[in-house]
């Protein structure tokens, strides 16, 4: 663990890109991560990739987690990847959850999203994944 991590809590941004209004899951994850002792920032609905990248940079988060239920996860994740790289956040843990077919897991992984949590993922698995992968 780096010195920075021993001094402060893991900081997570949970964001809803695009126009998708399904926020039950995102809010449940926010509560689970807060209960696990993380510092959680929730974007609210309908944020552009630009707004999300800016929030990730300004809040200096360790984890960027996206929630997409509309099926637009690949184009949105692709756009956000470029913006996160430009913001110098390529070393942070990127995750995405939602209505995601198994076949997209590889594409998302190649884009740099190390955590992919489709509908029916367990909250504890998400928490543990973050604990294990934020170094």
């Amino acid at each position: 663990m780096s010195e920075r991590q021993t001094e402060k809590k893991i900081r997570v941004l949970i964001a809803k890109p695009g126009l998708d209004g399904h926020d039950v899951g995102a809010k449940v994850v926010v509560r689970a991560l807060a209960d696990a002792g993380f510092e959680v920032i929730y974007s609210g609905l309908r944020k552009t990739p630009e707004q999300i990248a800016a929030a990730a940079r300004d809040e200096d988060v360790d984890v960027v987690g996206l929630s997409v239920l509309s099926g637009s996860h690949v184009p949105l994740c692709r756009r956000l990847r470029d913006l996160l790289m430009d913001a110098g956040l390529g070393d942070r843990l990127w995750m995405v959850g939602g209505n995601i077919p198994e076949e997209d897991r590889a594409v998302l992984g190649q884009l740099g999203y190390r955590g992919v949590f489709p509908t029916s993922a367990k909250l504890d698995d998400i928490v543990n994944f973050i604990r294990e992968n934020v170094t």
Partner: protein
Amino acid sequence: MTVMKNPNTVVNESGIEIKTLYTREDVEASGGIDDSRPGEPPFTRGIHADMYRKRPWTMRQYTGFANAADTNERFHYLIANGQTGLNVAFDLPSQCGYDSDSPEAFGEVGRVGMAVDTLRDFEVAFDGIDLNKITVSLTINGAAAIMIAMYLAMAEKRGFDLANLRGTAQNDILKEFVGRGTWIFPVEPSVKLVADTIEYCAAHAPKYSPVSVCGYHIRESGADPAEEMGYAFAIAKAYTDAALARGLDIDAFAGRLSFNFNIFGNLFEQVAKFRAGRRRWARIILDEYGAKDPKSGWLRMIAGGGGSGLTIEQPENNISRGAYYALIAALSGAQTMALCCYDEAYTIPTPKAQRISLRTMQLLIEEIGLTDTVDPLGGSYYVETLTNQMEEKIVAAMDWVAEQGGMVRAVSEGLIQARVSAQAYAHQRSLEEGTFRKVGVNCYVEEGEERPEVELHGYDEAGSKAQVDALRRVKIERDDHEVEASLDALRTAAQAGDNVMPALMRAVKAYATVGEMTDVMVDVYGRYDEPLRF
């Protein structure tokens, strides 16, 4: 779905403890049996005397995808298969007030519903459909005033008499702030727009139902069944108050308010919820608001969906779940049913899945005897007791809203959102801990079971481009001066605080776009800023 607190105690989701046996004494102790007949206030047993003997429920599956032409083709397919109403799904840009060629629409055009930019799309979508025979429900909220104007203008152009035109718009913006999320304007102007549509329809399309108040999505967001109904009533009261403040008579519009409720969960709790809800709503409208026409107190409802009850695990189980949910709706006296399809947990329903849902409802009518008699569970000691107890719970949920200063304030401050989302979290935890049993999810899970393949409705780039091209053609053909003038008139009406529906009718007839009309109103009303409270 029943929560077992310990082996000796059974408590339903609304928090009512269930006894091992119910007798006449239990009914009496809970307030007795309401002996009113169906069709008589307070309508506990049904809003019509003959209910399904006269006409079975309307079957109205949620449909719409890609563009107006594809949607029109699916509509004709469903009607040919015996569907008796249409329930239109719009894509997210249309729902949020963006045109198909706007940057916000990137990757979303036609994805989760039909793309609508101008009146032309409505003309194509409903081509060849007899609007006097097939009633159409528009699942639209943030942009509802615009889409209602488009529907009325389309019907008028095709020669239908607005005085007799039936149909429904969802147009329940308050619940969008709690769940579903397709809001555009801040809370107060949003409620003002709902009142505009109620006022306009009361005068020009008196048989059209401009609002369908939804407990459905609040339940999906985490509320329990009694709260679902209590919160919906609190929302309906907010719209009623706004309409009354315009000087409308309660009887001029209350009978056209309709409702949308969820049906997943414990069968008896759900049936009691609907019986109790009918009685409570009649009391609110007839006693509290003093309506004279008994029909004003009708709780007319679409009961259906059950999306949150369906699981991605062992998805075929959803076919059985859907059958039980349809049974619940039929036992509850719903006017309309829309059943979630077994594949809906992971995709836009396939035609096969839609047909199974439709056949499920038809089985109840043709083979299982659900339309033979009215309120078949009436008189059951258990159901009558639970009806009385559910009514108390519904009232308690309404009281909570009143204590927060009413629904508009509870929503503006994010109070109800925080409460419902905390319940969703607790529910998810109980699912994962296994205290809330879910077949195929936390019990009866087979070793080595594979997660079903999610089939996303592929994004149709060509279809999206075709929609943008069609929009471009409409923009070339339309009269730019009339577009400008009608948008100016809309701005003037909005600034003056007038009813914007006449101006919207003029603008849609000039083929102004959804985005152009929304932008004018955003300039005047502003955009909603989500209160994030946990």
